[in-house]
């Protein structure tokens, strides 16, 4: 075994250990497995060296193409300050486990307490947990929170919420006795009339998204009042970078805010890992899913941090827990904290401003293209919907061949939207690149 990777014993050591156990071979230790159950095949290819493995991974990565990126849809191509990698790359952070033993885990615990604080401040809410899996599952967790809190079993959701989040929510709930009602969007915004029709005191929670999948930014304060009037909770999925400019969930009276933390210092990485966040009004804390870090003191009065309200959790409550979460996205949440602390209070505002300015520039540029119109009636942040004179699918496919990921065609996700395209512009895109997008689109439309 001393020729294997990462199994350190020398043959002599192995012999000593076997002797101490009182067996003559390692194979004997597998005697508890009935022989007829033993694996008959094991078709894993032979191993290789670290060097060869890395070379192989490089060739896997090279199997993807680099594209000029104007797509979002939940994951966003933002700047990640170099400190994020360096600090989250401290081995003491990333090779530790969930901080069950607080005395030797204050690094993780304090950082996650700081993370919770950042999320509370960002969302304008009182309490945050220490992360969820991703933004989509966070929507489902918020819905389940509403079900628990109200004891009702109906969820209403705006069709403007990301189709992925809606799908995940429905998957989570399909085997529960829950009714899920979706409100068909009206011009890329929540159809408030339709919502009013279904909002009654059987509704546990109403889920909206801001900015929504079309890019539209909405005000939900009034909605919050209506929802609260029915004893239900208003749940909002938000894009954290937008909160540098856009009214926060807390300011709108939202009860539970969730979202995906990818944009906060986590690379696109073909979709993960990122993290979900969830923040809520104080009164809802005992119904929160996942880990929560709390401040306390030791006998000498020294401040410290612990996993708290563990009585909600699966390792104590088992099937009565508020969620099944165990391992979560701690390191990604830490990256989020480092990101937010690195750009800082003013920086987040500035970054949000850059996003919006670039997107507005792009909007104007694209609107100049003959036949292209911009979805009217809604303010937007860094994503917006344009209507093309032909189906977006084909246009996007053509532009891909030219190295531009021009946006997400809406036809895949909404009826009667074949010509609609959602375009995303982050602070990383330069004016030149935006001009290239416009030119590329114009050319693609000429074909």
């Amino acid at each position, binding site marked *: 075994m001393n020729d294997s990777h990462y199994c350190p014993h020398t043959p002599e050591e192995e012999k000593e250990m076997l002797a101490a156990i009182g067996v003559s071979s390692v194979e004997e230790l597998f005697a508890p497995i009935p022989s007829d159950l033993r694996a008959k095949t094991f078709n*894993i290819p032979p191993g290789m060296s670290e060097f060869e493995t890395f070379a192989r991974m490089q060739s896997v990565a090279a199997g993807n193409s680099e594209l000029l990126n104007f797509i979002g849809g939940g994951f966003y191509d933002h700047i990640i300050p170099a400190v994020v990698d360096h600090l989250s790359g401290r081995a003491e952070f990333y090779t530790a486990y969930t901080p069950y033993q607080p*005395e030797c885990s204050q690094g993780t615990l304090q950082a996650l307490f700081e993370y919770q604080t950042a999320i509370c401040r960002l969302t304008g809410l009182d309490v945050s947990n220490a992360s969820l899996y991703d933004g989509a599952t966070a929507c489902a967790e918020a819905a389940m929170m509403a079900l628990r809190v109200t004891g009702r079993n109906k969820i209403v959701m705006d069709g403007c919420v990301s189709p992925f989040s809606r799908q995940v929510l429905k998957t989570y709930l399909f085997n529960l006795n829950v009714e899920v009602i979706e409100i068909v969007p009206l011009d890329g915004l929540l159809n408030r009339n339709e919502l009013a029709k279904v909002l009654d005191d059987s509704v546990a929670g109403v889920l909206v998204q801001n900015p929504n999948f079309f890019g539209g930014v909405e005000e939900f304060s009034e909605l919050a009042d209506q929802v609260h009037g029915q004893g239900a909770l208003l749940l909002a999925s938000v894009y954290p970078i937008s909160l540098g400019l856009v009214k926060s969930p807390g300011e709108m009276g939202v009860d539970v805010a969730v979202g995906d933390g990818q944009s906060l210092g986590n690379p696109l990485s073909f979709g993960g890992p990122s993290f979900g966040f969830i923040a809520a009004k104080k009164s809802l804390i005992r119904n929160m899913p996942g880990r929560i870090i709390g401040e306390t003191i030791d006998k000498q009065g020294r401040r410290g941090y612990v996993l708290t309200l563990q009585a909600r959790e699966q390792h104590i409550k088992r099937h009565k827990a508020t969620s099944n979460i165990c391992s979560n996205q701690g390191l990604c949440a830490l990256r989020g904290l480092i990101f937010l602390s690195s750009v800082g209070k003013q920086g987040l505002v500035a970054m949000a401003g850059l996003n919006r300015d670039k997107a507005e520039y792009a909007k104007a540029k694209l609107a100049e293209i003959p036949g292209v119109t911009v979805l009217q009636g809604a303010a937007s942040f860094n994503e917006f919907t344009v209507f093309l004179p032909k189906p977006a699918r084909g246009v996007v496919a053509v532009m891909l061949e030219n190295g531009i990921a021009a946006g997400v065609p809406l036809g895949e996700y909404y009826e009667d939207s074949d010509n609609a395209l959602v375009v995303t512009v982050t602070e990383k895109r330069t004016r030149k690149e935006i001009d290239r997008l416009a030119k590329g689109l114009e050319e693609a439309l000429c074909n």
Partner: protein
Amino acid sequence: MQLIYEKSTPGRRGVKLPASDVPVAAALPKELQRKESADLAEVSELDLVRHFTILSRRNFSVDTNFYPLGSCTMKYNAKMLENAAGLFAPLHPMTALLPGGEEFCQGTLGMLYDLGQLLADITGMDEVTTQPLAGAHGEMTGILLVAAYHKAKGNQAKKKYVVVPDSSHGTNPASAAIAGYEIITVPTAPYGDMDLELFKQAMTDEVAAVMMTCPNTLGLFNPHIKEIADIAHSHDALMYYDGANLNAIMGKVKPGDIGFDVVHVNLHKTFGTPHGGGGPGAGPVGVKKALIPFLPQPRIVTDDEGQLRLETKNSSSIGRTANFFGNFGVMAKAYAYIIMLGREGLIQVSEQAVLNANYIKEKLKAYYDLPYDMTCMHECVFSASKQLQHGVHAIDIAKFLIDRGYHPPTVYFPMIVKEAIMIEPTETESKAAIDAFIEVMIEAAQTAESNPQALHDAPVTMPIGRLDETKAAREQNVCCAVG
């Protein structure tokens, strides 16, 4: 240590952003504007770096401490794997979902596909989805697949229960509950496995699935597992395999061969991803053929020309369990780990993990009560009941270990063992490290007799002592008030 917010100075700027090269846009309508900027930290980059660098040092971690945390498989993970995952940082997942987009993602889609096949071989399953984001998420996904299966057969209405042994991990019943089932818990027999008789009594046609860990959380392989599976199947209940303990059995036995229908794998335990202080992990789920139609979307399939495509609109699917393709970065590490170790390497991992656990078990059983004294797999579970006679609890021993620079084993789990001390050394520790740990464990046992107070007082070498958890739970101070 101060919080980052306590180190902030109003007006201090962080990282510099690019200057704008476009006009300033008209402001958002007033009613959409945020009133007050979020009160994030305002620190210099140096202060930021010092803060988190110093903070990191307040953790024990695998790279600095032996970390025999049972059930968590705290092995050393090769640094190359971190580098490998970084190669994929700039790739946007939506690309693959664009019309014609798969063509531009053959590298990553291919890797996920290949990883699925490797995991399918390791677990003896027919197909694997890489979408679930952790073990528990895999459990929920798996049980939802079970539900979809029963639904498709038209008998979901009568399927009300999921059976778990009382030794099971808390996530098992929690996941099943979230997926809409009621839980039946079967006690463990004195021989360390789920009581076969009680299990038989519990089984009815109303049971949708039986969830088991094998080896179980006592580190024991259940010799009756096939029989259990046969009984379950006779009631049209599916067998769910919690793969958290896969590190014990690679190449030795395959869940799919011994009657399991659904498996999740904790990639972060067995396959090359460090635990990140609480994630990210990944919990791919493998299934037998009958369950393939229900797998989450998007599902990676090959077309006639061998190109990888995404199936996104299969109406029998349970839908989506997460945004995109799962925690891809974790998958990249797992894939690299598996191809690097290869067949022989993976077998050795399991052999050496089992060797180390048995060695510790033998060396410590004179000092600690061993409730199930038999050959274990990759971990062994002691009880501090001997020490309790001196008023010393498992937690006291844990805290003593901290003072000696060891991360404690898992304590008080599995719940069926009183004062449980669950030790999983993993295969990556050297004999010297294991021997040193054994010494300290013996010292703890001796100190429990000679000076129990010393154990109650531990830890004394850390920046803080034992914390007041009641106060934390009562005050619910979960967000910094300063700043």
